[in-house]
C-alpha cells in the first residue's frame, strides 16, 4: 500500500542540473568544480547555462555574456554545441518514457511525468524519483533534480527547492505549509509586473495571496487573479499531457551590431532557414506556416506569419516564405537587432505524402537538402552551406531559441 505521505503524489518534475554545462563537462572533466559558462563568446550572446560554481558569482541563464564575464572573469567559456545537447536530451526523454508513457517535456532538459500507473511496477513515487536520478547518473553521467507532488505546479516548485542534485516530495497534506511562506513570484503567472501590482497592495507571500479574497485579486489582475488565487491554495488540476509533436521549431539571431542592410538580413534568413529545415527533417516533420520575427534597435518586436501553399521542410521554401514576409514589412523604421524564423503548424512528414508540382522543384531541392543532411551528419554541422553564407566573417554561432518547449532554451535560473 502507498504510504499516506505519498498518496496522490504522482506528479514528478524532473529538471537537469546546469544541463548544457553538465554535458560539456563529460568531455572536459578537468573543469569539474570550476566556474563554467556555456554561451557564445561573441558580443551580444546570452548565457545558456552556468555551473553552480559560476552561479555563486551571480551568473544566471539568459544574462548577456558580457555581463557574465564581468561578474566572473575567471569562468571557462564553452561554445554551445546544440547537437550534443539534443542527443543527451533524447536519451533522457527515452528514460522518462520507459518509466511512464505520460511524459510532458517542457524543454530539452525538463519534463513532467505522471507515474500513477507505474507504482505497481516500480514502487512508490519517491522510489521512482530516485530511480530516475540513478539511471540518468549511471547512463549519462549527469545529475537531475526531482520534485514530487500532487500537482504540476507544486512539483515544479519542489524541484526548484531541491536543486541541485536533489529529490523532494511535498506530501499533499503539507502542500499549503510548503507553499505559503514562499514569495508571490513562486506562483506561475506572477512575473515582475504582477509582482509589482501585488506588492503595492502589500501582498508579498503566497500566504498573503491565499488570504486575499479572490474577488479582490480579480479586480486588480483579471483572470490572472483567479488563477493565482487557486494556485495559492495549491489547486492546480492541469494534467500531464504528453505532447506527440513539437508545436514549432525555429531559430533566431541577435546581431553583434544592429543591421540595416537588406542583403545581410536576407542572408541571415537563409542561414536560419537551413538550420530550421535541417531540424524539421531530422524530426521527419513538415511546416505548414512560417513566421518571421524582427526586433528593432529599441526592442520593439514584431512577428508575421504566412501559410505555405503546401507543407514543407525544405530550406528553400522556408527561406522564400520568410523573405516574402520581410519584404512585405516594407521600409523598416529602425535597424534590426534580432531576426528569427519559426516553422509552425508542424505535421508528420511521412503521413500525407508529398504534393507534387509541375516544376518538380520540391524533389530536386528535397534530394539536395537530404544529401546535405548526410554530409553534415558525417562531417559536422555546417560542412556544406549555400554559397552566399560562406562569406568570411559571416558565420556566427546561433542564439538560443526562446520559444516554449524548445530546444536550445536557456535553462531556468535556479
Amino acid at each position, binding site marked *: 500500500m502507498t504510504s499516506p505521505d505519498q498518496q496522490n503524489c504522482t506528479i514528478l518534475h524532473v529538471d537537469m542540473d546546469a544541463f548544457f554545462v553538465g554535458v560539456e563537462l563529460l568531455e572536459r572533466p578537468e573543469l569539474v568544480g570550476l566556474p563554467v559558462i556555456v554561451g557564445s563568446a561573441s558580443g551580444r550572446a546570452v548565457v545558456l547555462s552556468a555551473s553552480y560554481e559560476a552561479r555563486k558569482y551571480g551568473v544566471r541563464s539568459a544574462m548577456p555574456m558580457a555581463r557574465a564575464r564581468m561578474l566572473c572573469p575567471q569562468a571557462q567559456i564553452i561554445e554551445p554545441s546544440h547537437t550534443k545537447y539534443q542527443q543527451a536530451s533524447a536519451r533522457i526523454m527515452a528514460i522518462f518514457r520507459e518509466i511512464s508513457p505520460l511524459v510532458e517535456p517542457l524543454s530539452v532538459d525538463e519534463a513532467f511525468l505522471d507515474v500513477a500507473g507505474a507504482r505497481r511496477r516500480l514502487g512508490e513515487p519517491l522510489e521512482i524519483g530516485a530511480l530516475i536520478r540513478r539511471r540518468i547518473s549511471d547512463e549519462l553521467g549527469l545529475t537531475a533534480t526531482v520534485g514530487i507532488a500532487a500537482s504540476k505546479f507544486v512539483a515544479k516548485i519542489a524541484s526548484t527547492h531541491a536543486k541541485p542534485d536533489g529529490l523532494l516530495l511535498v506530501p499533499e497534506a503539507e502542500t499549503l505549509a510548503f507553499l505559503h511562506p514562499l514569495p508571490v513570484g513562486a506562483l506561475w503567472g506572477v512575473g515582475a509586473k504582477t509582482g509589482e501590482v501585488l506588492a503595492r497592495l502589500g501582498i508579498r507571500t503566497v500566504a498573503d495571496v491565499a488570504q486575499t479574497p479572490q474577488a479582490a485579486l480579480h479586480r486588480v489582475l483579471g483572470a490572472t487573479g483567479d488563477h493565482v488565487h487557486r494556485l495559492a491554495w495549491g489547486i492546480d488540476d492541469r494534467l500531464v499531457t504528453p505532447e506527440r509533436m513539437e508545436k514549432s521549431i525555429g531559430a533566431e539571431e541577435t546581431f553583434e551590431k544592429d543591421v540595416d542592410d537588406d542583403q545581410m538580413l536576407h542572408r541571415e534568413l537563409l542561414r536560419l532557414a537551413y538550420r530550421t529545415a535541417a531540424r524539421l527533417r531530422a524530426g521527419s516533420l513538415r511546416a*505548414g506556416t512560417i513566421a518571421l520575427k524582427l526586433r528593432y534597435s529599441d526592442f520593439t518586436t514584431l512577428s508575421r506569419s504566412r501559410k505555405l*501553399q*503546401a*507543407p514543407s521542410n525544405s530550406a528553400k521554401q522556408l527561406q*522564400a*516564405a520568410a*523573405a*516574402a514576409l520581410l519584404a512585405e514589412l516594407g521600409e523598416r523604421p529602425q535597424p534590426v537587432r534580432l531576426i528569427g524564423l519559426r516553422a509552425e503548424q508542424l*505535421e508528420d512528414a*511521412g*503521413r*500525407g*505524402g*508529398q*504534393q*507534387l*508540382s*509541375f*516544376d518538380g522543384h520540391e524533389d530536386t531541392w528535397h534530394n539536395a537538402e537530404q544529401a546535405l543532411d548526410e554530409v553534415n551528419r558525417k562531417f559536422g554541422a555546417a560542412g556544406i552551406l549555400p554559397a552566399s553564407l560562406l562569406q568570411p566573417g559571416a558565420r556566427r554561432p546561433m542564439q538560443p531559441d526562446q520559444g516554449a518547449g524548445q530546444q536550445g532554451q536557456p535553462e531556468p535560473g535556479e
Partner: protein
Amino acid sequence: MKFRVDRDVLAEAVTWTARSLSPRPPVPVLSGLLIRAEGGMVSLASFDYEISARLQIPADVTAEGTILVSGRLLADICRSLPSAPVDIETDGSKVALTCRNSRFNLATMPEGDYPELPALPDVSGVVDGEAFAQAVSQVIIAASRDDTLPILTGVRMEIEGDLITLLSTDRYRLALRELNWRPTTPGISTSALVKAKTLSEVAKTLGGSGDLNIALSDNSELIGFESGGRRTTSLLVDGDYPKIRSLFPDNTPIHATVETTTLIEAVRRVSLVAERNTPVRLAFTDGLLTLDAGTGEDAQASEAIEAALAGDEITVAFNPHYLSEGLSAFDSKYVRFSFTTPPKPAVISAQDDLEGEDKEDYRYLLMPVRLPNQ
C-alpha cells in the same frame, strides 16, 4: 453641382465603382469617388493606380460640376438610404446629400489633385458576357494565391483570331479554357497576363449584361473591359508566364469516366476524414472507382462508385481540395480522367455520354500526391 437621381440607381452605381477602391489608398485622394454631373448624365470613377472603374447613369442634372468625395462613406450611406430620390448638391467645400428626411453633409477633396484616369485601349473584340464569366470561374480556381510568385497570381489570356484561351496554374494544377469571341481585327494574335482577382471581379460585375468588350493592345500595359456603360481598366501583370501548355501529356493510355455529381459527392464525404494536407486515394479498377482517405491510426473512410475504365488499373492520390475544386468546375454529366502513370499529372475533361468522346475546351490538369510507399 446639383443633381437628383433615384436611390437604387445611385446605390448600385456607387457600390460598383467603390469596389475597386483600395483599402489602403497610396494617396488620400484615391480614397475618393470622382463624381461629374454633365448634360443629363452623372459619371462616377475610382482609381488606385492599378485598377480604374468608370460608369455613367442618367440623372436630373440642374447644375453641372465635379466633386471628389470619400467612396467608402458614400457607399455606406447609399446602401442605408430609403428607396426615394436622392438630391446631391455642393455647398462650398461640402456636399449635401438629401433623401426624404435624411440629410448628410460630406467633406469633399480637391478634385484638381485627382490623377487622370487611364484611357481605355481600343476595343479589340467582343465576347458573350455570360460565357466569359463561366470560363473565368473555371480557370481562376487554379491561379495561385501566393504572392511570392506574382506571375502565377495572374490568368494568361492568349488570343489567336476568334479563339481566346485562358490559362492559370499554381504549380500543382493547371486550368485551360478556350472560348470564342468576335475580334475587331481578324487574325489578331496577342496575349496578356491579368490578375485572377481582377478577372473574377470583371466576370461577376460585367458578365451579366450581354456583350462584353475587351480592349487590349499589343504594347499596352493595360487591359480594359466595357459592358453596359461600365468600363474598367487594369494594369497587366508584368513578367514572362511559363510555357505551361506543354505540361498536358501527349499520350494518355488510361482513361476513366465517372458521373460528375456522384464523384463530387463521394469526394466530399470521403475527404471529411482527410485531415489537412492528407490526400484522398482513387483506385480505378474495371467498372469501379474506390475512393478512400484517412490513416490507420485516425479516422478512415471509403466509398465505391461506378466508373468506366479503359486501360490498366491505376491508383492515384490527390489533394482533396484541389480535386473538389476542379470537379466542381464541370457541368457535364460525366468527367473523364486521363492518366499516363501515377506520379504524372492527370487530365480531367468533360464528357456528355458514357461511351462518347471527351471535350477539350476545358481541361484541368492535376498533379498527384506521392504516397509514402510510392
